[in-house]
């Protein structure tokens, strides 16, 4: 954010350190065992282990719970297995209400995948334009980008719902896809990445060689921005996958719902109709993490930079 210009490192340096895991200085210096008591080190490890247990046990519980049938869920120890019913649960999950869960999964992939792809492309172009060209109004555009971080989601979503309902977009995939195309945070990240990776000299050289601006963007800038673009895409994907207020507002019929919306609806089912679908909810919840976990692991070195870069600049 612009508000933290006094933060300790420059974008280039920060991007560099994120890529290599940690700055080179660290590896040489390391902690000095002589200056730190053994007890201190032990205390630190204990603290971190406790924090790790706290972080992981809910996930462990979820994995265990997804392998149990309804009876086991209520009667056995929550932290250990009792009978392997994971396949039954999955079968039930995918066939319940004509396989509506599969539909929600596909919807989540559609909104998060296509929406973020379009949004990333627009963000990269905008970020590049903001970072490497000096045009009148540039400051205004950037101020709008940063200022929009403060707009509450309700202030945008409610009028958007009214506008979409007037033009007949409510309850269609477009109501989810269109808002994903414009993402100020992605623009912000793209600008920071451009500043860190695209030198002015390179652009000048390309211009002297007679390349047009569009050609420079498509064949030089976009290629050099693969890493940055991947981070922007990943963060946008995660954001859309996790979205709740927007889909809750603009999607009515359950055939267009996202996974989150479906799971939310199922948790309310018991109070409403007395049908207990807890084991379905838990198995579904576990499954909805899987794509995120796969993507994040695959792109770990990218998104780590994204999280820290985006937050610190």
């Amino acid at each position: 954010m612009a508000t933290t210009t006094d933060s300790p490192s420059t974008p280039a340096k920060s991007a560099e350190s994120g890529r290599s895991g940690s700055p080179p200085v660290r590896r040489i210096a390391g902690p000095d065992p002589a200056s730190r008591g053994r007890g201190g080190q032990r205390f630190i490890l204990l603290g971190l282990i406790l924090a790790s247990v706290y972080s992981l046990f809910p996930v462990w519980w979820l994995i265990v719970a997804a392998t149990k049938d309804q009876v086991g869920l209520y009667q056995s120890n929550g932290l250990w297995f009792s009978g392997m019913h994971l396949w039954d649960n999955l079968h039930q999950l995918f066939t319940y209400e004509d396989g509506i869960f599969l539909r929600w999964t596909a919807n989540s992939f559609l909104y998060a995948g296509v929406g973020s792809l379009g949004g990333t492309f627009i963000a990269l172009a905008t970020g590049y334009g903001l970072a490497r060209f000096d045009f009148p109004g540039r400051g205004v555009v950037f101020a709008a980008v940063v200022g929009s971080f403060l707009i509450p989601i309700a202030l945008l979503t409610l009028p958007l719902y009214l506008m979409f309902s007037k033009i007949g977009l409510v309850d269609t995939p477009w109501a989810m896809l269109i808002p994903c195309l414009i993402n100020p945070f992605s623009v912000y990240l793209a600008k920071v990445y451009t500043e860190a990776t695209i030198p002015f000299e390179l652009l000048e050289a390309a211009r002297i060689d007679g390349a047009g601006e569009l050609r420079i963007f498509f064949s030089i800038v976009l290629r050099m921005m693969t890493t940055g673009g991947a981070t922007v895409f990943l963060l946008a994907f995660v954001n859309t996958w996790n979205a709740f207020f927007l889909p809750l507002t603009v999607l009515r019929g359950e055939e267009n719902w996202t996974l989150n919306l479906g799971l939310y609806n199922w948790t309310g089912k018991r109070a409403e109709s007395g049908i207990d679908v807890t084991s379905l909810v838990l198995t579904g919840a576990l499954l909805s993490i899987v794509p995120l976990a796969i993507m994040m692991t695959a792109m770990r070195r990218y998104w780590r930079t994204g999280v820290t870069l985006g937050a610190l600049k």
Partner: protein
Amino acid sequence: MIRSQRWKGAAFTVPFQLGFVFLYLLPIAYAVYESLFQEKRSGLGLGGATREFTGFDNYQLGLTDSAFMGSILRVVLFACVQIPFMLLVSLVLALFLDALTAKAANRFRIVLLVPYMIPGVVAAIVWINLYSPAVGPLTPMGDFLGFDWNFFAPSMVWPSIGNLLTWHGIGYNMVIIYSALQGVPRELFEAARLDGASEIRIALSIKIPFVRAALVLTGLLSIIQMLQLFNEPALFRNITPETVDGSFTPIMIIYNQAFNAGNYQYAAALSVLLALILGVASLLFYRLTSKEVD
């Protein structure tokens, strides 16, 4: 820069600018416009609703609406407890990581980030079930230890949601603070050690002041998030509608006004009010926390 190049550069930002106008500026203007009207229904509602320009009446209503102001107060009080606690834990963990070798720190960092990778709705589902006396292990654990826990009781709902938010947010905040810590020049520590400073002293007098900007930022992001709290209470409401009512947080009130009461104009006014409060709160927080630096 050559004049034509400038305009070509501006052209790269045109799709975004157009989208921004249609998806940000227009909706906000529309909300402000809507907020100046009220739907008045005739006696029996037979004649349908008529739309009347009422100026700032909706705002006046909002400012005196005890449910709305109460929900803001509730969220602010909660933020005053949860955010400092979460940031303190994140800071301590980041300092702990900083004391380890790069390899060990990396392992712990990934483990501590696991909760952040889980969608908020799923995180809430998991914790609601952990809290549940029928399914979750926490209630039997409490029985065993001699506590009579009811995580959904009115007095416990905030601590329950607070724990969920803390669990979800620690990793993210820790990573930001930790990467700021990595920017502290290592020579400072050596110098301090030569002067006989203890590790705790170094942490307090060098490391923490150095990551101040990161703390301000994580604090600011948390405040923005907290004032817009919706997902977690909405899921709690599915389980315990008696405890978590429809006016639990400001956004829940706005949502209910718009979609259950059908009062869009009032909902629009409330969202504008919330935006103003959010802006003021962020500015205030930023002023208060960054003043001492200069």
